[in-house]
């Protein structure tokens, strides 16, 4: 449904490389996530695929149409929800929805079944101006407006940034329901915990893709085993742990320190490490093996990328 082949985009006359040789493809009906920190190039990729930006090189197709030569046809087939709220703040919910339906030559009635689940939640405020809505309601309205013309591909650029955790979960529930309706969805997010909700994800850093796989696949591909370590003096622990082994990578993760054991080996590591830490004067020592999260995988890839 969406394919990109070696697309590259540079800004400021080629000095800033925003998207570097990116290739991926998204199947019909897939929920595909672009995961990466701010400035990784997610929005640039989306803006190229929605025909707002021309790539410097490479090619891409959306719903079978080339993004450069056939952009007119793409525009009537895709729904795009930019990262920033960009509906008319001085028009009401109903007016915004009605307006975007009409510019796509359709009516709200015709495709109401697509948005019904979402729209009923904001319908009681139908007469309220869009600018006066809360963050979560704005996102719901924006999603409705992006869906009202029954797009075949939906692009959601950081839809959950700045939205509270409850609304975020609700939002992902809505995306899952939409996928069941056969709409292909591309979503970008800087939140690693949302990655596991996608069918497949691409991890992006500095404009290039580090890995593309299903969330499970990426976690399974973690090259070594991972431990979570905790002790009574966490701030000191961060400094002491690296002295245990020269190859060790450790980083703070919530209230634990995650420990990558690549190049260290040994199944008796938990016991040895506990002894080492006890000798260093720590108490309440806990060392346990854990399954890597997407964030662990991302950090691991960055470390390997650098060394």
């Amino acid at each position, binding site marked *: 449904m969406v394919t990109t082949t070696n697309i590259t985009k540079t800004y400021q006359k080629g000095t800033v490389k925003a998207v570097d040789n990116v290739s991926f493809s998204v199947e019909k009906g897939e929920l595909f996530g672009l995961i990466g920190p701010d400035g990784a190039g997610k929005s640039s990729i989306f803006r190229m695929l929605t025909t*707002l930006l021309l790539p410097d090189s490479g090619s891409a197709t959306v719903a079978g149409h080339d993004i450069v030569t056939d952009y007119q046809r793409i525009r009537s087939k895709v729904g795009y929800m*930019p990262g920033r709220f960009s509906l*008319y703040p001085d028009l009401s919910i109903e007016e915004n929805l009605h307006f975007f339906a009409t510019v796509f030559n359709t009516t709200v009635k015709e495709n109401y079944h697509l948005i019904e689940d979402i729209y009923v939640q904001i319908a009681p405020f139908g007469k309220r101006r869009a600018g006066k809505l809360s963050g979560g309601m704005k996102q719901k309205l924006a999603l409705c407006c992006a869906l009202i013309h029954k797009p075949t591909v939906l692009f959601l650029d950081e839809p959950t940034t700045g939205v509270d955790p409850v609304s975020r979960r609700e939002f992902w529930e809505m995306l899952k329901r939409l996928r069941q309706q056969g709409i292909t969805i591309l979503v970008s997010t800087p939140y690693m915990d949302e990655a596991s909700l996608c069918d497949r994800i691409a991890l992006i850093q500095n404009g290039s893709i580090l890995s593309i796989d299903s969330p499970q696949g990426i976690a399974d591909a973690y090259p070594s085993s991972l431990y979570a370590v905790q002790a009574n003096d966490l701030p000191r622990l961060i400094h002491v742990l690296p002295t245990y082994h020269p190859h060790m990578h450790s980083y703070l993760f919530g209230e634990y320190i995650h420990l990558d054991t690549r190049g260290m080996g040994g199944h008796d590591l938990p016991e040895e490490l506990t002894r080492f830490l006890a000798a260093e004067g720590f108490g309440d020592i806990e060392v346990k093996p854990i399954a890597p999260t997407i964030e662990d995988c991302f950090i691991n890839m960055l470390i390997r990328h650098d060394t």
Partner: protein
Amino acid sequence: MRILKFLLQKEFRQIFRNRAILALILVMPVMQLIILPLAADYEVKNINLSVVDHDHSPYSRQLVSKITASGYFRLQGYPASLKEAYHLIEQDKADLTLEIPRGFERELIRDGHQQLFIAVNAINGTKAGLGSAYLTRILRDYNEDIRMEWMTPTRFQPVSTIEVVPSNRFNPLLNYQFFMVPGILAILLTMVGGFLSALNIVKEKEIGTIEQINVTPIKKHHFILGKLIPFWVLGNVVFTVGLLVSWVIYGIFPQGSISAMYGFVGIYLLAVLGFGLLISTYTDTQQQAMFIMFFFMMIFILMGGLFTSIDSMPPWAKALSRLNPVSYLVEVMRMIVLKGSGWADVFPHLCAMLGFAVILNGWATLNYRKTN
């Protein structure tokens, strides 16, 4: 066409919802037309005069009372010497000093001629020029009076004089309001058209809504027409309000063809809206658009022939003002309102304005891109 209808519906809805702008559009022309023509008066009045009278004769007193009776001058005092009079000028208490020499009356009667001295504060060039001109004219009249009094009426005038009697056409009483009101109306129209269109599109850029529009199948020309038409209508409303105000308050009613006037204004608005559109395609924020618009507005207004005559500008400025749409409107307004011109008279202006409209809108349309 259907899409255009919905675009227009949306634009008008937004305009009517923005009460501040709406009020401004209606109140601005009324207020400006009431205040400006009364204040922006070219006639120089209240010139402060000091008289150094060394003569103290009935003649000198008669001269001074004649000057003060003209209404243009305010007598600020009788300094004893020219030095004191200069002091008054330095302190900005007097604009003009008239020195009447000792023996003015005696020598005037004896020799039949006498000299007076006028010193003028020329910081404000207009005031100085007009002030001394008024004073010279009063002195000449006075001179005539004295001649009449002294010359024994003979059958033949010993000195032949040429008297010029001007007749003012189109504005017989030289009423400055007749001259200013149509010009101010022209400026108002330019402001409303130019600023509103430029700021409106840049606002869509600023709040990001243009992104959302750009991914829709809306055609470029639909979008641009959707922006032009509402402000074109508003411009005509402002113009009509302005005409009514000048009719009710100043009694100025167009002497010429009203249809020609609206025809010209219609095309003029297209040109100005196109200009606003063009600026909006080159700017990203309302602040940028505002400043660029101000830059051009200053030039357009000051070089538009409203305050200073274009004919008295240097040749390069004259040529430049041909590129200034405001100068055409000011001229056409005065032609139709005062001179009673019709379609045929404004035809050349109409053609030029059509050129402006086509070029500016074409340029703006070419430069408006949905894709970067």
